[in-house]
């Protein structure tokens, strides 16, 4: 694997390997402190995403490498009309690995096709964001110790939420998982996810609008926010944004070892009081994202013969 564009580019074996590396980094950070000495990561961000960029940059620094950061399309060559393909070729000359964030779907694929160094998709519009899924998966693994036999509730915007689709894709590859899809009618999981993934693989799932009713059966609760930018009109957004707000009270019937995840940033869909509950894992998830990005950078640079 030269680049990571979609989470399904990784086999389950490769995923296991990344999880193992991340776990080892967590246990022995010093061992990796010089692993990428002299190597440069370009963070090429054509749309702002401070958190994702910081995570990549922190990951590279902790591996002893350097970062060249390009943010804001307005100040970059894209504003002068340079194509993504040309940008990829140019940036390859200066760096050893590229993380790209772009508002257009498929931009990371075009970058990978044209770059001579490994490329990581740090989000291409509403399409894929595989390193978020890596963060989600490490969190599930560290909290549950397995990827199989889990009842996974996903809640909120299941229509536009790309992290949800990736998570369903990734977790559908393991045995014995069940999905509980919790959303307002208007934001249900698109039929192609149900048809091409869940039904095709015979994975049990239920769709509901009632979070509290299903709470007791969940092992994982993956909350998402309703994103303003996915709506064409403000009215719909305002009507749907408060559909699900997770409170301490709603957790009273939840399992004791439930793991609550959220890709962050949150708006108000998880009340701040929940943060003190030991089942809240979303800040650990942020940290796990950095460790998985470290593991991924290591893997890609190793495979490219750079380290």
């Amino acid at each position: 694997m030269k680049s990571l564009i979609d989470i399904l580019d990784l086999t389950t074996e490769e995923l296991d390997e990344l999880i193992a590396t991340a776990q080892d980094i967590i246990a022995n950070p010093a061992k990796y402190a010089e692993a990428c000495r002299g190597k440069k990561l370009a963070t090429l961000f054509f749309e702002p995403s401070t958190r994702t960029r910081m995570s990549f940059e922190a990951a590279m620094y902790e591996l002893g490498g350097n970062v060249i950061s390009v943010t804001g399309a307005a100040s970059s060559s894209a504003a002068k009309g340079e194509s993504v393909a040309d940008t990829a070729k140019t940036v390859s000359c200066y760096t050893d690995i590229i993380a790209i964030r772009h508002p257009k779907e498929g931009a990371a694929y075009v970058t990978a096709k044209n770059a001579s160094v490994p490329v990581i998709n740090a989000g291409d519009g509403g399409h894929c964001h595989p390193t978020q899924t890596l963060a989600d998966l490490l969190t599930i693994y560290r909290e549950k110790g397995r990827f199989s036999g889990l009842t996974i509730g996903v809640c909120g915007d299941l229509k536009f939420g790309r992290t949800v689709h990736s998570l369903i894709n990734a977790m559908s590859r393991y045995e014995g998982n069940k999905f509980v899809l919790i959303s307002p009618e208007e934001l249900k999981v698109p039929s192609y996810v149900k048809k091409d993934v869940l039904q095709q693989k015979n994975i049990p799932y239920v769709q509901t609008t009632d979070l509290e009713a299903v709470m007791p059966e969940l092992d994982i609760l993956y909350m998402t926010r309703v994103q303003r930018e996915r709506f064409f009109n403000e009215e719909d957004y305002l009507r749907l944004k408060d559909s699900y707000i997770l409170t301490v009270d709603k957790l009273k019937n939840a399992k004791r070892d439930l793991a609550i995840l959220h890709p962050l940033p949150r708006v108000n869909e998880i009340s701040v009081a929940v943060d003190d509950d030991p089942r809240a894992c979303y800040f650990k998830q942020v940290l796990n994202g950095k460790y998985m990005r470290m593991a991924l950078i290591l893997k890609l640079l190793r495979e490219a013969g750079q380290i």
Partner: protein
Amino acid sequence: MNIDSINNGIVIDHISAGNGMKLYELLGLAELDCSVAIIKNVVSQKMGKKDIIKVDADIPVDLDVIGFVDPGATINIIRNGSLVEKRNIEMPERLVNVIKCRNPRCITSCEQELDHVFKLTDREHKVYRCIYCETKAN
């Protein structure tokens, strides 16, 4: 043009009724100077109704386009008034610059020099998806 007799040319036969015009457009037959005939709703024993396209010139046709629109079609090459070759059509694995991705958020919508490429992802249901954004072709 006598549509029954072509001396040198191509006959695309067994087109499912209704697909004739689509093929005419996607094959770029409108740009040809030679005679082109689309015969619609021809009674066929095998198919009920079918469309036929006859082109009165020995032009190269993009078999991938035909395979995408109508894999059941057949091609007859006519030379000096007689049938010299009959070709069956297959669904192509990839389609390059035949159709455009309609997703406004796709990278191909803003970068003109990119090829529009679709991949056959489900042969049974004849599903093609954009290689960039995975949007279904229709």
